[in-house]
């Protein structure tokens, strides 16, 4: 029973022991980030593939290969994700640097925001309802275009399931970047301010990452779209779900 483990046995259990410290998760995440960068450049930066997708796929593959528990990985990675708070605040810099663009577009933005942010919720809810989704599922899908930290707060009020809410957010974010890519081509829209705002309003942080790849102006409009949608939806949904 108490026989000491052989070197080989200790080696096999190493990833689980190291997983008890956040360092393994942090190293894996950064490693996957650089690996995904190389892969993305090697396949010629296809516009239909948002770079977060190869990044997350490689990372999930590493977690599976090492046989780690996804929850213990995320616990470790939460040390890295702490930086999301100051990184969100940091979006204020490009926002301010583009304030003249925003002022010039103030009224179109003020009019578009409530309509588009309401429809982002309603389109999905109506389709889900027609397909027979349960009330919990509906409550989990409703905040789909809101940045994660705000969405989780709304979810607590309207009764969402947290894992499903997170999945809805992520799928929406990734699919938004694809839709914007396709729709701007079909509609022949080239205005970076419009593209950025649509990315942030619908695709929250994931859309904003994509917008910063286009330009700093697109990124600023995306940050604005993300913030305003977060504010608006946080006010709208608790009222809507009380009816």
């Amino acid at each position, binding site marked *: 029973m108490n026989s000491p483990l052989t070197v080989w046995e200790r080696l096999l259990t190493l990833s689980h022991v190291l997983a008890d410290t956040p360092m393994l998760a942090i190293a894996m995440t950064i490693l996957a980030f650089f690996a995904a960068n190389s892969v993305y450049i090697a396949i010629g930066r296809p516009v239909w593939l948002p770079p977060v997708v190869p990044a997350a796929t490689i990372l999930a593959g590493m977690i599976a290969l090492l046989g780690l528990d996804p929850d213990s990985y995320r616990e470790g990675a939460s040390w890295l994700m702490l930086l999301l708070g100051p990184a969100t*605040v940091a979006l204020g810099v490009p926002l*301010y640097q583009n304030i003249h663009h925003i002022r010039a577009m103030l009224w179109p933005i003020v009019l578009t925001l409530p309509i588009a942010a309401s*429809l982002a919720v309603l389109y999905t809810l109506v389709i889900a309802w027609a397909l027979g989704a349960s009330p919990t599922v509906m409550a989990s899908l409703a905040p789909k275009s809101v940045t994660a930290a705000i969405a989780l707060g709304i979810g607590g009020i309207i009764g969402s399931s947290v894992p499903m809410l997170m999945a809805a957010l992520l799928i929406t974010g990734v699919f938004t970047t694809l839709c914007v890519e396709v729709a701007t081509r079909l509609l022949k829209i080239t205005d970076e301010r419009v593209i950025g705002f649509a990315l942030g309003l619908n695709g929250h942080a994931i859309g904003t*990452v994509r917008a910063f790849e286009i330009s700093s102006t697109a990124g600023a409009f995306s*940050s604005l779209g993300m913030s305003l949608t977060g504010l608006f939806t946080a006010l709208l949904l608790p009222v809507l779900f009380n009816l």
Partner: protein
Amino acid sequence: MRATSVIHLGSSWAPPMSILRGFLILVLFFLLGESLRLVFLVPISGGILGLMLLTLYFMATGGVGNAVASASQALISVLILLIMPGLTEIFFISGKFTGQWLAVSVSLLVGTFLSVVTTLVLLNVLARKLPSGSNNHE
């Protein structure tokens, strides 16, 4: 372009102390946002409140300091790194909602496509129709 610039962080733009000072300012604004959220019980995250407060602060003081600018650029360039861990969740949760997946995927995909098109068309049309001389705000 963004992807490769990540490696040179801190060496070429600004001295590390300056980035650290900028990072401190960002963290302080985040904490200010969190404090407002907790004291007034608003359902808005501290990060978003901090973002808005920082923008208002720049508008009041009329500029962005070098320290904040370099810290901000450093963080924004690794934004993907910070959202990757959450994204992996997609690969490990499937199966928990069997029976609802059709409604979930169809409503998310179709709903998102419709709202993207709505946003693009609406803002594009309004931006052309409304005169851009609405600078009288403030």
